[in-house]
């Protein structure tokens, strides 16, 4: 278990993609030539001053995209953090302790799986005050079930291992066993599930923002695409407006997916 | 000679390339019962699967295994399908997952017969029920209509022995038939093997007592090498190889005298040399080289202790240095 995850070409590519976007997100104020909210002049085509032109209200699209990286990644990563965290904690409790806790958690998981996720997310967004964290909560609310199920099965297998059983009978505190033995053994699954959760959350966010249900105080890539689409940029052939968000969303989601999928395959093969 | 295994080696191509079986040779005559004894990971089960072409694609098998004169290692799938199950058959571990969980045991026992003798499903299952009764799996027909999950390990094992002989195979290759079974069930499996009067058996086991019960000859494997091969009586009463001696001394009825140390993981072996050297009482400088297979007092033994002794003779082409 102390072996490093050896990355193959696909997973490395994913890692590079994510690194690229992370750098943009961190250095957004340095990279972006304008304040994304500053209104200059509407519908300018690409030029030296505005490499991706300006939008309907005259904001620099390139700057919007650069700052959008922050918003999209922020929502994706934090939603995935909640999803994976909740899934892991529930799996540890129900898988390791079993009994009543397991029954209750399994029942909750089953109900959460029976809730259609997109309608609930949309409904929640309507009820919650708009903002990044409302989106994050709405996205995470049903997405943790898969992780919880997979990890629970794994934890149940692990706790039957002889050395863990021995420690259990010796009266070692459950917290010690969980942190020293169980968690290190499931950390690879947690990491790959986490990467998948980020790509999933970013996809949902892109969809919601595109529909105009997202966060508009600060625009994410999905919100940029929303305005591009609903202001008819496709009809007007303003490809500099609608192409960048599509490319960024697709590439970034793919990056996380590559890590989640191929990182896992490599591990399984060994 | 029914089965003649000559210098079979198996290597797995993945990772560092694990050598699982090295130059193993043995023969099984008609109606002879041979056991391969060794610890978990010694490569004995892999040898069995290699003979039957059941290893995954990343396994590289070299050597020859003649079954009734035809080399199974080089056989094509179509030819294999004609003999597997009807002339030479495999009996998986009863405690494992060797039966399809979604099909009835009766059908699975009858399946080789349906496939090879082209008889109807009903008659074949009736035949399976007869055989299953013979092995005391159950007296009612319903037992055959049940699914594997209702069976105990011992019942599964006996059902799979029935499955092995139903289509008239002369040769059974069995994998760890006593693993995971208690004394009483082992007894029943022993009885089942004893009743295989007409079949030859090549059986892999870690259980020396079981081997003593059923076999005519015993081959001992340690860390992918065959270290000793002799008739069962000879081997158990006058073991030559230090590993065989230690193994027999460690049996409960002999007072559980364990030799020190552990069998190592595959990747820890040095290239060449006797694999047992690190645990061996007689280990000497010479043991850094791979010992040849020698023929001593009717045994075949791979150990430097017996070189230069009276009666020593290099066993037929088995002793090639690796």
């Amino acid at each position, binding site marked *: 278990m102390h072996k490093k995850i050896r990355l193959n070409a696909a997973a490395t590519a994913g890692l590079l993609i994510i690194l690229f976007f992370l750098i943009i997100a961190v250095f957004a104020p340095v990279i972006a030539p304008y304040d994304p909210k500053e209104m200059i002049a509407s519908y300018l085509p690409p030029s030296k001053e505005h490499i991706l032109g300006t939008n309907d209200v005259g904001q620099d699209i390139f700057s919007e995209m650069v700052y959008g990286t922050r918003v999209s990644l922020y929502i994706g990563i934090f939603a995935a953090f909640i999803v994976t965290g909740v899934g892991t904690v529930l799996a540890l409790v129900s898988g390791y302790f079993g009994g009543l806790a397991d029954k209750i958690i399994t029942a909750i998981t*089953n*109900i959460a799986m*029976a*809730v*259609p996720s*997109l*309608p609930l997310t*949309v*409904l*929640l*967004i*309507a*009820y*919650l*005050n708009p903002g990044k964290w409302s989106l994050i909560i709405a996205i995470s609310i049903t997405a943790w079930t898969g992780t919880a199920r997979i990890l629970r*099965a794994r934890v149940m297998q692990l706790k039957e291992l002889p050395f863990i059983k021995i420690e259990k009978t010796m009266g070692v505190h459950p917290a010690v066993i969980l942190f020293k033995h169980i968690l290190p053994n499931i950390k690879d699954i947690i990491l790959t599930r986490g990467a998948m959760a980020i790509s999933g959350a*970013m*996809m949902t966010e*892109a*969809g919601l923002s*595109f*529909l105009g249900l997202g966060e508009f105080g600060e625009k994410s890539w999905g919100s940029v*695409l929303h305005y591009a*689409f609903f202001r008819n940029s*496709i009809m007007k052939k303003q490809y500099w407006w*609608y192409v960048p968000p*599509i490319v960024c*969303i*697709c590439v970034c*989601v*793919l990056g996380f*997916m590559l890590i989640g999928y191929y990182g896992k395959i490599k591990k399984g093969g060994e | 000679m029914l089965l003649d295994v000559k210098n079979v080696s198996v290597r797995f191509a993945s990772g560092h390339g694990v050598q699982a079986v090295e130059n193993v040779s043995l023969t099984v005559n008609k109606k002879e019962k041979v056991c391969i004894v060794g610890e978990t990971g010694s490569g004995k089960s892999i040898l069995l*699967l290699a003979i*039957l*072409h059941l290893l995954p694609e990343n396994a590289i098998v070299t050597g020859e295994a003649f079954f009734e004169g035809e080399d199974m290692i080089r056989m094509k799938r179509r030819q*294999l*399908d*004609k003999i*597997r*199950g*009807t002339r030479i*058959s*495999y009996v*998986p*571990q009863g405690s494992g*997952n*060797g*039966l*399809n*969980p*979604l*099909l009835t045991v009766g059908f*699975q026992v009858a*399946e*080789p017969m349906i*496939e*090879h003798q082209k008889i109807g499903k009903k008659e074949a299952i009736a035949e399976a029920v007869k055989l299953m009764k013979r092995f005391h799996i159950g007296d009612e027909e319903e037992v055959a209509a049940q*699914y594997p999950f209702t069976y105990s390990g011992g019942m599964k094992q006996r059902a*799979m022995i029935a*499955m092995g002989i139903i289509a008239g195979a002369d040769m059974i290759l069995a994998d760890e038939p006593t693993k995971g079974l208690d004394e009483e069930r082992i007894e029943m499996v022993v009885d089942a093997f004893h009743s295989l009067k007409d079949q030859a058996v090549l059986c892999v086991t870690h259980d020396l007592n079981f081997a003593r019960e059923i076999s005519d000859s015993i081959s001992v494997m340690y860390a992918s090498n065959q270290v000793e091969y002799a008739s069962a009586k000879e081997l158990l009463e006058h073991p030559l190889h230090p590993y065989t001696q230690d193994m027999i001394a460690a049996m409960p009825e002999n007072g559980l005298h364990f030799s020190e140390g552990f069998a190592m993981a595959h990747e820890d072996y040095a290239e060449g040399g006797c694999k047992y050297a690190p645990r061996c009482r007689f280990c000497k400088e010479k043991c850094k080289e791979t010992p040849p297979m020698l023929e001593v007092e009717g045994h075949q033994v791979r150990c430097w202790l017996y070189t230069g002794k009276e009666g020593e003779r290099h066993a037929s082409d088995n002793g090639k240095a690796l």
Partner: protein
Amino acid sequence: MTRHIAQKIATAFVTIFVIITISFFLVHIMPGDPVIHLVGQEEYYYLLDNDPETLNKLIARYGLDDSLPVQYGKYLKNIVTMDFGPSYTNQKPVVSNVLKACKWTLFLSIPTWIIGGLLGALLGVIAGWKPGKLFDKIMTPILLIVNTIPSNCFCLILLIFLAYRMKLFPINGMVSPGVEGMARVQSILQHMFLPLIIMILYRTSGDFMLMKSAVSQVRSEEYIMTAESKGLPSRKVLFRHVMKNAMVPYATSFCMQFGGILSGSMIIEVVFGWKGMGTILYNAVSNRDFPTAQFCFLLSAALVVFANLISDIVNAAIDPRIREEGIQDA
């Protein structure tokens, strides 16, 4: 078997009840006056300051002045009688509004469910049976990438190339106005082609991954080795032994996907102006038409629960371990 299914049916009812209850309290545990959600924040504060009378009328109209248990009771009664009142936007009954839209969604989702499910399973079996071979090496990355493209982006990409540039398909809507008879059918088919292709591609790629991993997992089981050792030809090993076992997870998922046939296509519907269930829900949420939104939500939840129940029954039919002992995850 009967006991097992009876238990599953009971669970389904409990689940539905819990979802209904949660969806009621969702409105009431949210911070602030529930009326805020009805009229929107700005309108609410405007009315509160300038026209409290109208606000009170609204509260009375939606029964928000009753005590919580009374409201809950009324809410349950409305669900049992399928009376969700009029839609806030067009004043027609919510139920008939939504059901009409469902029909249009089913035009897209039923073919998707069947074609995508079968195609994905077929390709997945081929790739999983010979993993690492050419077919697997080509199909897996392609379908993996399809699976990673967010649906809104995928829709736009196809729209831009096939509809705007090449003008092969209509851009928006479900049928051209003013056509009748066969021409109308043809027009509908033309309009549904792009959204349908996208939905089928997604479904195919999802089922491909599932079936591929199920087949390659079963393939490495010991009993497949046993089957090979009996001298069965590959074809029989695949169909009799591998497929039968790989069908268990696939059938489960196939049945469960039925639960998503109303709620799974929201973004695609909105992009293509397909006036189905997804669009209705989207409009309802945008216009704060809560009765409509709530009914859409409950209807799709009921369908999901129903589909899960079916998948449990199908599972029990395939797997004797579940059928006879109720063992799960065996």
